């Protein structure tokens, strides 16, 4: 059974699988599966040509400590970038998303994966995530219903509203 994700406010079947390196496998030698695959950054870096030669859409997985700067030139290659939250309180991914969207102009799907809980969805949407692989035991229906509309506005400039509220205030 395919997992479900939330994408652009709807619950949809996930068409992607994520390549995970088993014990002893290396980025250089791991077999590259066919289909829509999200590759860890080290695999992408080691096997860029092989991955592109598959002729399929490519996804990339960024861990929380991996720097956007290092793949800036490759961003046009990805249909999906998944940013992992190892714990929902580990917030590096919010900066990763801000940089991808605001500085590097990444337009593809930006997906939050890992410890993605109801209570961070609003902030995630604000910094530019548009897809969410909610933690398994959490209700996707409740998330879609309530998670993205906790606050009706935001004071700050961010991806979803690049102009801060103070510049949009009616006098």
């Amino acid at each position, binding site marked *: 059974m395919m997992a479900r994700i939330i994408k652009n406010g709807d619950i949809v079947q996930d068409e992607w699988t994520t390549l995970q390196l088993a014990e002893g496998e290396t980025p250089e030698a791991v077999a590259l599966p066919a289909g829509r695959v999200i590759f860890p950054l080290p695999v992408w870096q080691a096997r860029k040509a092989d991955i592109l030669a598959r002729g399929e859409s490519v996804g990339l997985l960024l861990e929380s400590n991996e720097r956007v700067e290092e793949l800036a030139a490759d961003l046009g290659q990805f249909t999906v970038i998944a940013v992992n939250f190892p714990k929902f309180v580990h917030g590096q991914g919010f900066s990763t998303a801000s940089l991808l969207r605001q500085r590097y102009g990444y337009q593809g799907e930006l997906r939050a994966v890992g410890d993605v809980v109801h209570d961070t969805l609003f902030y995630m949407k604000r910094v530019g995530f548009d897809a969410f692989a909610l933690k398994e035991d959490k209700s996707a229906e409740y998330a879609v219903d309530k998670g993205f509309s*906790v606050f009706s506005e935001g004071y700050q400039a961010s991806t979803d509203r690049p102009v801060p509220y103070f510049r949009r205030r009616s006098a």
Partner: protein
Amino acid sequence: MYRYDAIDRQFLQERVAQYRDQVRRFQSGELTADEFRPLRLQNGLYIQRHAPMLRIAVPYGQLNTEQLRKLAFVARTYDKGYGHFTTRHNMQFNWPKLEDTPDILAHLADVNLHSIQTSGNCIRNITTDHFSGVAADEVIDPRPLAEILRQWSTFHPEFAFLPRKFKIAISGTRQDRAVTWFHDIGLHLVEGKDGETGFRVLAGGGLGRTPIRGEVVREYLPWQHILTYCEAILRVYNRYGRRDNPFKARIKILVQALGMEEFSRQVEEEWAHLKDGPATLTQAEFDRVAAHFEPPAYETLPADDFSFEQHKHDDTAFAKWATRCVHAHKVPGYAAITLSLKKHGHNPGDITADQMDVVADLADRYSFGELRVSHEQNVILTDVKKSDLYTVWQTARAAGLATPNTGLLTSIICCPGGDLCDLANAKSTPIAKAIQARFDDLDYLFDLGEIDLNISGCMNACGHHHVGNIGILGVDRNEAEFYQVTLGGRQGNNAQLGKVIGPSFAAEEMPDVVDKIIQVFVAHRHADETFLDTLDRIGIAPFKDRVYEGRAHGASKKAERKVA
């Protein structure tokens, strides 16, 4: 003060709804305790020794009387009739029930109070000088920019889950009264060469387990860039601050690891991308916010008031209070006053619901309906006519709010400590009370002059012990409570950390230890010297010698071991 508009109020209502839903999901088991914990902390709710503790934000220390009366209502209705003011201008309630907290926050939201980001690893309440707007030595009123920073930091989507807590203090005076050198970001409002307003930006300061004085990131930043510059600092911190060890996660550790030169380079590089972007402040926004902080309708008065002078002459108790608790004001004929929450024998910083009502009445009648909370855990009325001071004093005295000890030895900054706080290694308030009892002679206290004594019940340093002239830190030694003493700490422009004098002491020894320290000061002081002056002149050794006289420690202990 800043009056919330429709959007500011809407955020508070939405926050209450969000929190109510989180409590509901926790109670129904949809949220685990581990998941609920960071969420409740971002609403100031701790689970403590006896009950939850709820911390209410008092942004940059400013309250109106409607808000204070609401805090009194909450204290009576949901707590045991009192609250506690902290060193970061916040109010803590120590006995609420978890299930009541959504209702408490709903009541508070009615008067534009909240507990947003009063704990957790996020940007905390912005603090400033408690005399801002009226201080005689003020260069620039920090409150409009503090309010702009409050809004920017509220629900900031990128910086809600930082490696660790993040505290910003802002000061606009010649003498720093906001402990800016010991904050994650310290901001000094300064006049630039062109007469424009700007900031000196400090970063990497902090007390706690690893106390470090902040360093200058940028000597001058035009005010329009404050939000983008803070974003640059926060982004560098959020990306590269450590998350593997909570004790190494504050920005000060990152700054130390990189060195300020490299840290500053990274911030400037990040800022180059953000500079002049849409988050750059506009004059229109500054003017909109600053209009809320226009001076109240002061009367035109002579600088000196005859009745005030007469009452000081006739009533020595009033004269004493006036010496310690009446402060210089920009406007002739007015004064700022401290209502001391440091009455001997009471928990420092605690205020009863009845006292809150008295303060609210005084502020309404005599100080334009507003008040401040100081980081020294007192209440300040900023705009009292000198001709009203005697009447205000009489009312305050009757309510136990006129102890004339501000700045003196017994005006102790003190955290709630091990009686209530789950983090504490040791009790703190009984030590404060025992020291107050030992030094209960007001004439003697006046003779000793200004001495800051600060007590923390653990190394988290909520009682700012590192910057007390005399600092006392509760430590756990083989599961017993002991107290370590530091000397020479200080706030202000030359803020410094105190130095540990030696091995720690048992609780019952502490009044004697402080007494001995004071005796050394009295024996060595020159006329007109403060405690710090004498300490700086003679050094720490005479104090150590006296305190540890007859006790085996240091060199003598080593010698003893050798003999054995």
